[in-house]
């Protein structure tokens, strides 16, 4: 097959953008089939181009990096940025995930959203999101990446608030956008520092400048790295900016699958991996990343254990798994982080889509307490979701096992002084993950049926009775289920008899990191096997507890919850983080703006100047009215006075206007 010409790279993001334009402007008038066709076509073609790109770059003798540059975008003395795309192996993986999983989700949405009004709007926004995400992934400079970064934030806001008539959805959209903005602020500051220090925002230039100076450590690089971490924390929902992700479940389920599981939230991880050259020079920043990752992982997992909404459980699970990826990057195991990103995309998207299928089957029910015994009613959904559950729990030989294990192993053997502690945290989180996923599994599919077939579901359509979803929704589930099973096999480590293809694939990208780790990797096959066995055991313990609480001895969970009510309440109310933010950040800010901006500026300056203008006009008017007294002599008096003034100006003011 002939290699792909690099100019085709432009098509990859621009085709979804064209789809957005068509559906956005004409979609209201087009029939549903046309809207679907446009959306799917303009997502499928980029997927095909990416496939071609894969073949091109995996062929023998293929270049490791392909790039394409446009006309200059910003050119001022000392600083230039172009629209430039670059594709290396890291980009290839991300492209594969975005276009592949993206296309599957588009397909799924065609079925899921079939009865929604605003169908065209949904696909327009979805295509817009694809465009921005692809720009983000393909970008060759921080600035272009930031364009994509902001754009996916915008698309996320639009899609979360898709059911804009619902207050909670609109508020969730605003919350997501605002919290993201805080992260963007960090990213912007990092870019400013980069421009000031390197005079450039291109990846190649900045990274080669850093590589060329092996003695640069810490200092400004730490500052830049920490600011980038702030941005990544916002986008990838880490502590302290994760609060938007659970609320983002107000959006339609395919949105949760695409944006808040597989792609947008991984942008932060991608950015950290892309800037690994920078992060490697700042052990402090890496330590911060690792700690944030581990803390978020266990924090979110603990909240997820007591949630009742099926989508909330998955949301907190996403936050937790993103913590794992952060942890991986924090200990320098970038390839492992990306590997987990890949497998997570598969099984998390699968889990969300399958949850959507369950919700669709139950005509809108999302509370797990009103589910149960569905495995006989919706078998295909059951089997595919099970694949996802086993994958995320880290059971061998499903995908999640290999990726999660790799991360835990690298954390244990890292140079980080608290590496072992982080490993323990990760291990406990793995146990919790297994527990709450199997809890979800048991509560949804096993046990007595607690749902009632309602007359109307939440979108007002007549209920269908519990039934399996149409094939257009099941097909993506099946594909993703297969990928969840075999997806991890590209990263089977040498210790378990594999070749760890993905790590070697990403070697050209993470050359620095992997050479540092090369020594430790070779030595301890035995250690790796032991650690793998431990994590498998932990997953099994999680399964066991879930089995006991939710299958064999039902009601045990309730009893424990009653006995430790304060702890349970703490978890169930998400550690009151939202309330804390509200009290300490939101309310003071609102009070301050009300005081300063509303009272001082709005009423004082703006309103005041308006009033002043009016009052002064009135005042001057009433003063000058007195001149019109009707008395001729007073007119004469003013005339004389005026004449004198004119004379004065004429005689002595000559210098004023000849200046």
């Amino acid at each position: 097959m002939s290699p792909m010409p690099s100019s085709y790279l432009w098509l990859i993001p621009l085709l979804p953008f064209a789809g957005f334009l068509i559906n956005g402007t004409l979609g209201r008038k087009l029939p549903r089939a046309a809207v679907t066709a446009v959306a799917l076509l303009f997502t499928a073609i980029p997927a095909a181009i990416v496939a071609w790109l894969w073949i091109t770059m995996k062929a023998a003798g293929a270049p490791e990096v392909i790039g394409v540059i446009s006309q200059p975008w910003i050119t001022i003395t000392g600083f230039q940025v172009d629209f430039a795309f670059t594709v290396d192996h890291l980009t290839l993986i991300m492209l594969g995930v975005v276009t592949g999983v993206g296309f599957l989700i588009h397909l799924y949405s065609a079925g899921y959203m079939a009865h929604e009004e605003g169908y065209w709007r949904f696909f327009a926004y979805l295509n817009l999101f694809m465009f921005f995400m692809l720009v983000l992934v393909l970008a060759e400079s921080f600035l272009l990446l930031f364009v994509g970064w902001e754009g996916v934030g915008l698309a996320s806001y639009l899609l979360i608030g898709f059911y804009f008539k619902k207050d909670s959805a609109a508020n969730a959209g605003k919350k997501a956008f605002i919290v993201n903005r805080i992260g963007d602020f960090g990213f912007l500051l990092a870019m400013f520092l980069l421009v000031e220090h390197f005079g450039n925002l291109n990846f190649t230039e900045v990274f080669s400048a850093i590589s060329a100076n092996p003695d640069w450590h810490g200092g400004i690089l730490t500052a830049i790295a920490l600011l980038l971490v702030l941005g990544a924390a916002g986008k990838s929902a880490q502590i302290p900016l994760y609060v938007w992700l659970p609320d983002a479940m107000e959006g339609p389920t395919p949105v949760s699958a695409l944006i808040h599981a597989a792609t947008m939230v991984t942008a932060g991880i991608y950015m950290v991996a892309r800037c690994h050259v920078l992060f490697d020079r700042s052990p402090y920043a890496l330590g911060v990343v690792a700690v944030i990752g581990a803390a978020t992982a266990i924090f979110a997992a603990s909240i997820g254990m007591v949630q009742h909404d099926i989508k909330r459980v998955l949301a907190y699970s996403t936050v937790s798994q993103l913590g794992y990826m952060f942890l991986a990057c924090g200990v320098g195991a970038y390839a492992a982080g990306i590997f987990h990103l890949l497998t997570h995309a598969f099984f998390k998207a699968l889990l969300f889509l399958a949850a959507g299928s369950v919700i669709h089957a139950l005509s809108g029910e999302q509370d797990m307490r009103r589910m149960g015994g569905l495995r006989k009613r919706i078998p295909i959904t059951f089997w595919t979701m099970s694949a996802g559950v086993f994958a995320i729990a880290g059971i061998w030989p499903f995908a999640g096992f290999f990726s999660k294990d790799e991360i835990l192993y690298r954390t244990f053997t890292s140079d980080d002084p608290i590496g072992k502690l982080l490993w323990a945290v990760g291990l406990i989180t793995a146990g919790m993950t297994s527990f709450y996923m199997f809890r979800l599994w048991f509560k949804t599919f096993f046990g007595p049926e607690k749902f009632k077939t309602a007359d109307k579901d939440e979108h007002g359509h007549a209920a269908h009775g519990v039934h399996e979803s149409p094939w257009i929704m099941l097909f993506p589930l099946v594909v993703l289920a297969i990928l969840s099973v075999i997806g991890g096999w590209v990263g089977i480590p040498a210790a378990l008899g594999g070749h760890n293809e993905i790590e070697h694939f990403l070697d050209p990208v993470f050359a620095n990191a992997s050479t540092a780790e090369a020594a430790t990797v070779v030595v301890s096959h035995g250690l790796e096997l032991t650690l793998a066995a431990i994590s498998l055991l932990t997953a099994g313990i999680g399964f066991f507890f879930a089995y006991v609480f939710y299958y064999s001895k039902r009601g045990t969970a309730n009893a424990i919850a009653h006995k430790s009510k304060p702890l349970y309440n703490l978890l169930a109310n998400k550690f009151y983080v939202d309330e804390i933010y509200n009290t300490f950040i939101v309310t003071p800010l609102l009070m301050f703006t009300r005081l300063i901006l509303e009272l001082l500026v709005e009423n004082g300056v703006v309103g005041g100047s308006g009033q002043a203008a009016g009052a002064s006009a009135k005042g001057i008017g009433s003063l000058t009215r007195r001149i019109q007294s009707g008395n001729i002599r007073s007119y004469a008096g003013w005339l004389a006075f005026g004449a004198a003034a004119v004379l004065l100006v004429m005689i002595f003011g000559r210098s004023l206007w000849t200046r």
Partner: protein
Amino acid sequence: MQLALFIIFGALAVAGALNLLLQRHPINSALSLVVVMMSLAVLYWSLGAEFLAAAQVIVYSGAIMVFFVFVIMLLNAGEEERTEGSRAAYFVGFPGAAAIFCLLSFVFLSERKALGVANIGGYLNHLTSNISELSTVLFTRLLLPFEVTSVLILVAILGAVVLARKEQ
């Protein structure tokens, strides 16, 4: 000679003006104004404007001031009463008038070197007379304005007739 003329008739003019100011009955003011105009006629003659001096006597004091006197007698205007006037006239007007005077004098005095001196009888060295020079300009270059002023006078006549007519 020049100086004597100037002083005498200048003083007369100022005295007449002050009298206009100070008299209470308008007829007295009118007659003082006639005195002012006559003195001004002499001053014009001393500056070489003979025609204007004649016109001043004939037209200004002979026609216009007579007209004033007619109206005063027609309306039988009596002495002025004291009424409460406007404050603005006193507080703003007088400073204004004083300022005008001061400014003008200041300018004239500071330029007095440049202004030069007057020669009695004019400057024409008896080559042409004042009146022929005046009429040359008036009937050649300024013929149109001259004719327009005659229309102006016609309009004024009409206006005066209409305005002063008894209501029917």
